[in-house]
Structure formats: structure tokens, C-alpha cells
């Protein structure tokens, strides 16, 4: 005779029988994976805005570049995959460092406003796209990893690559949070974001703060690109620009300029999109309306908290 608890647990975890637990696990996992990538990319954007008042419209293209550089080292040159990711992050940092030295620093010295900086960032994005296309082509690329392997977790299918992405993304998110909270430069960045003039007169090395912001942003952009390429299984030169809107939505949801907020905003956005497909939401929202759900949630949040989820805390700091 089958024990009672076995029968119940079988029912609960068999999605076809109408019990939502397996579905919930599956969509929760999918949401966390998507959300963690949004979060990592959104932190870079948010940090740049908080420190430099720069809306980095080129963030999506840095993401694409990161994926392609990793591909070049890991697939074309057959280097170790982790090493290739590190090289890609270093390359992202180097490009951001270079752009800071030759472009952004001069624009700031010339008192360029937020709109001017935004337009220049858009110009950088428009230049990066054809450069990426010219160097790497437009063909669909694929990392040398097994994207089909899955693990069974209470009936839900957990892809190996996505699990690895989720673990490493979580570690990265925790490290960023820790860095911002404990490291000297992290604290300086928060202080500078809160009040640049006061931070400058209190002895904070502004150039070091700005450079650190760019380096973190460049590294995170590359990392998010690799993660996205792994999650999708394949990628092409249009990968980053198609996700840009979601990144900015995550930034706005978590309060513009608040790095912690961007982390939470990204995760929530991913969860909203995926969980909306659960049957309990009016029989499941059709997948082509996922962005509608996410942006409706964003609008709702902004209606009640126009400054974003972490707006109050930001003002208080």
C-alpha cells in the first residue's frame, strides 16, 4: 500500500494534475535566473547614474561585447572557460577605463549636463554596435558548454548552465553588496553619490571613486553578457540591445541611482515576468505578455512610490 504522504507528495509535485508546487518551483527558478542577470546589469547602470549622473545607454552593448570576448577566448582560442570570463571582465574594465580617460572625464570637466552625457552614451552605443558586428560578425554563437543537461528538482527541470549562472550571479550580487557596504571605495562611492560636493571637500578621492565605478560597471557588464549567453544557449550581436529596456526598468523599479535597489529591482522584474505565467494568475498570463506584466508592475509601484522601491532610504542616507 502506498503511504499517504507519498501519494500526496506525488500529487503536489505532478504539475499535470493541477497542483501548482512543481510549476511554482519551475517559474520561480526561471524568474530568479532572468532576474539575477537583470540585477547584475542594472547595478552597473545604477552605480554609474548615482556617481556620474550618466544614463549609460551603451550598457546593452557592453553586455554583448563581454559575451563575444568570452566566446573568442574560450571557443576560438580554446582557453579555459573561467579564464576566458575573467579576461572578458578585464577587457570590459579596460574599455571603460579608456573611455573614462579620453571621453567622460573631459565631458565632466566641460560641465556636460545629464542630457549631453546621455546623448554621448547613446553615441557610444551606436558606435559599439557596428564595431562588434564588424569584428565578430552577426552569426549566432554558442559557448562550448552542455546547455541541454538538466536536474530534476521535485518535478521541476533545472538546467545545469542556468543553475551555475544563478549560483555565480548570487555570489556576484553578494560580493557587490559587501563591497559597497564594507570596502573603503564602496563607502566612498555611496558618499559621493549622496552628496558629491560634500564628499569632495571631506577628502574623498573623486577620481578614484569615478574610476572604480567605471571598472565595476565594465566588469559587471561583461559578466552579465556571459551569463545571458549561457542562459539563452546561443547569442548574437543583438543580444544586449534587446534587453536594455528591462535593465532600465529594473533600475527605475529599485530607485534610480540606488545600487541595492537595482539588485532587488532586477530580481523582482524577472520574478514578475516568469511567475505571471502561473495558472493562479487568471489561468496564466500568455508568455508574449510577460513584458506587459513586468511594466504594469513597474507602473503600479511608481504610482504609489514614484521614487522607486528604495526611494525613501535613498533620501535618508
Amino acid at each position, binding site marked *: 500500500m502506498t503511504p499517504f504522504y507519498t501519494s500526496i507528495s506525488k500529487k503536489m509535485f505532478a504539475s499535470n494534475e493541477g497542483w501548482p508546487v512543481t510549476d511554482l518551483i519551475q517559474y520561480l527558478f*526561471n524568474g530568479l535566473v532572468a532576474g539575477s542577470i537583470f540585477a547584475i546589469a542594472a547595478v552597473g547602470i545604477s552605480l554609474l547614474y548615482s556617481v556620474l549622473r550618466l544614463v549609460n545607454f551603451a550598457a546593452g552593448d557592453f553586455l554583448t561585447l563581454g559575451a563575444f570576448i568570452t566566446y573568442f577566448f574560450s571557443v576560438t582560442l580554446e582557453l579555459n572557460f573561467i579564464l576566458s570570463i575573467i579576461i572578458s571582465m578585464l577587457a570590459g574594465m579596460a574599455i571603460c577605463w579608456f573611455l573614462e580617460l579620453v571621453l567622460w572625464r573631459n565631458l565632466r570637466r566641460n560641465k556636460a549636463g545629464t542630457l549631453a552625457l546621455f546623448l554621448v552614451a547613446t553615441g557610444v552605443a551606436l558606435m559599439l554596435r557596428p564595431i562588434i558586428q564588424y569584428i565578430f560578425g552577426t552569426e549566432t554563437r*554558442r559557448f562550448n558548454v552542455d546547455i541541454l543537461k538538466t536536474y530534476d528538482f521535485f518535478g521541476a527541470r533545472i538546467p545545469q548552465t542556468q543553475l551555475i549562472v544563478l549560483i555565480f550571479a548570487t555570489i556576484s550580487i553578494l560580493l557587490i553588496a559587501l563591497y559597497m557596504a564594507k570596502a573603503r571605495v564602496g563607502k566612498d562611492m555611496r558618499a559621493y553619490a549622496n552628496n558629491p560636493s560634500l564628499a569632495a571637500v571631506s577628502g574623498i578621492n573623486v577620481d578614484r571613486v569615478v574610476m572604480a565605478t567605471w571598472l565595476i560597471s565594465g566588469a559587471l557588464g561583461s559578466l552579465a553578457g556571459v551569463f545571458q549567453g549561457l542562459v539563452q544557449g546561443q547569442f548574437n550581436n543583438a543580444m544586449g540591445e534587446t534587453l536594455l529596456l528591462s535593465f532600465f526598468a529594473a533600475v527605475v523599479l529599485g530607485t534610480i541611482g540606488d545600487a541595492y535597489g537595482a539588485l532587488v529591482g532586477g530580481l523582482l522584474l524577472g520574478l514578475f515576468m516568469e511567475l505571471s505565467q502561473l495558472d493562479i494568475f487568471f489561468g496564466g498570463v500568455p508568455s508574449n505578455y510577460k513584458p506587459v506584466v513586468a511594466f504594469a508592475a513597474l507602473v503600479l509601484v511608481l504610482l504609489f512610490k514614484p521614487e522607486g522601491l528604495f526611494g525613501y532610504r535613498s533620501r535618508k542616507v
Partner: protein
Amino acid sequence: MKTRRNVLAVTTVTVATIAMLAYTVPANAAGVDLKIGTIHPLTGGNADYGIGLTSAAEFAAESMTRAMKKAKVAGSCKITASEDDQATPAIAVEAATKLVKSNKVHAIVGPLTSGATLAAATSVTVPNNVVMIATAASNPSISTFKDNDTLFRTYPSDAFQGKVIAKALQNAIGKEGTINIGARNDAFGTALANVLTSEWVKGGGNVGAKVIWNPDGATFDSEAKALTDKTPDAWVIVDFPDTFAKVGPALKRTGKWDPTKTFFTEAMNNEAVIKTIGLDVMAGSKGTAAKSMGFEADKWKAARKTAKPSTKETFVDASAWDATVLLCLAAIHGKSTKAAVLSKSLRAVSGSNGGKLIPWTKLGNAIKAAAAGQNFTYQGAWTTAKFDVNGDTSGALFQIYNVGTDGKITSDAKNDIKF
């Protein structure tokens, strides 16, 4: 002084007369210089198709110009610019704007996709009264699109393909089987998914799940789950290669999807595409695609290979050849590059008004007939167009293809479906 004045007056009158004559009378009364632009995806996931179609259009223009010289019919037929739309509607609009405003083309061959075609037509070619012949756009709404008779296509409507997939499914799983449909969220995907749903239900079948995905989605695992939650008798996927390269692995990871029970559409009818997506995802699948119903299609392929040896071949290339040849013949027939004349003459040379058959192998004869203003039926390498009032071709031929375990695509002509 008086003599000098007279000389000046005579010279002025002579120059003015010559200038007027030059402006009003062409160098040769039969000569029309037709400028054509092409719009196809030359980069991105559909680039294989776009490059093949562009090359075929160039081959057609070169062949026509040579044949015109040989037939001693003045004028020319040139591809003046080939634009890349990346199969994206917004970029197609930019490409069409450049062709019409900067390159001043008289007609456009392309785009490849329905979304790009409808966008370019709405924003550019219809308002500017420029004739456009789409080469692989299949959305049924193109037929009824208000285009002032400027939009044509050489590829059959999905009103046909919906029926073909339904028929292929009936043969595979019976009339009352259950299918799950997955489609991309654009003009091509949603329209074909709707036509298929209607045809399948009308025939007595059931649709278990219909999942429409956004090609720009960050992940596709939830869509794959929705498409496989209830196991159907067969799946139908309406997608382009670049998106399915992401959806396919997600479907495979569900552990419930079976590619051998899956039907695709024409976009996967290409071995290079199968290789890119991966054999572990595509092997054993089937699909439907329009097929050349042209005259001696294999001979055309061989001729193109000789003329353009470096171009990779796709199944639909000849569609752009026919579109270009028909435009050139129409310009010769109407002795004009004006849209209204081209539209009228496109029907006169494509067989809509009847007339003797002239195959693509006898371009010289077609050119002479067009120059003489005759109605005739051009038999193309892809189709015998016989454009109807909507600018659609009058017939269609479809094949059912199979993807082998080695990635090779095969089809049996016995299973072809003709309309």
C-alpha cells in the same frame, strides 16, 4: 555688331532647342533605365536567405541587361543599392527610405519577412508610390493591405501554408489529433499560427496549447514549459532560426518535447540553419515550405552557381530572380518607370492577362515581346506569377521536408501539395 548678335541669337535658339529635345525625347524611344533597390537581411539569423536572394536579384539584373543588349532593346535594368534590414521592421523602414529618397530607385525587390515588408510598405513605398515585390513575405494580410496597387509578392501567402501544415499533420497524426503550436510574436508568426489553428480545428482537430513568444525575450524556459505541459500528438513551431536557436534547447530541456513529432515552417528548410541550431534539437523533425514551381528550376540553380559561385544556395533564391526579371520586363513593356505603369505592366508580362508562355530560359524573347507591348506569361525559375488583383501569385507548390539524423534535408516530390 549685328552679325555677332545674330550669331548669338541663332546659337541660343539652337542650344535651347537641343536642350528641349534632349529633355522631352529619350535617346532611344524604347529605352528605359530601371533602377531597382533590394532589401533583405544580410546580417543576423536570416542572413543566409537574404544573401542568397540579393545575389539572385543581382544575377537577374545582369542577365536582363545582357539579354536586352542582345535583343537590341535599349535601356537598362540595374540593382543600384542592396540594403540590409536584419529582418527587423524598423531597419527595413530606414533601408526603404534610403533607397527611395537617396538612391531614387523606381522599384524595390524584397524584403524577406512579413513584418519588414508591412513596415516598409506602410511607411515608405506606399506613401511614395514605389512598387515593391516582396520575396518571401507570407502573411495573409499582405493580400488585403491597402497599397494603391504597389505591393506584390512572388512567395505564396500563408493562407496556403496553413492548409499545407494541416494536411501534413492529418497524414501524420490523423484528423482528430491534438497539436501544440509555438510561434514568434510578429506578423509572420502570429498570422500563420492563427491560420493553422483555424484550419486544424475546422478539420476536426484540437489545439492543446498555443504559445506565442517574444523574439527579444531574456529566457524561453517558461515558454517551453507551457508548450510541453500537456503532451500533444504533434508540435508545430513557427519561428525564425535566430530565435529558435534559443527556444529549441529550452524545449529539449523540458524532457517532454520530441523533435520527431514536430513540424517547422520554411525558415528551417536550410542545412546551415539546422547546423547552427544543433542536431541534438533538430534531428528527426519535419517541415513545410513553398517550393519552386518554376520552369527548369534546377537549370536556373546551375546557371546561378556558375554566375555567382561563392553564394550559398537556399530554397527560395529564385523568388528574387523572378521579382527582378518581372520588374525589368514590366518597365520595358510599359516604357516607363512610373509605379502605375509598372503595376499594370507587371500583370501584362506575368500572365494575368493571358498570352503565350515564355520561360526564363528565353529572356530575349520575353524582352522583345515586352518591347512590342504584348501580353505574355513569363514562366519564372520560381513561379509563373500571374499576379492577381492583390498582387499575389495565383498558384503555389509546397513540399514536406524531413531533417535527417545527419542534418541533411530531404523531401519526396510525391508528397508535394499544389494549389
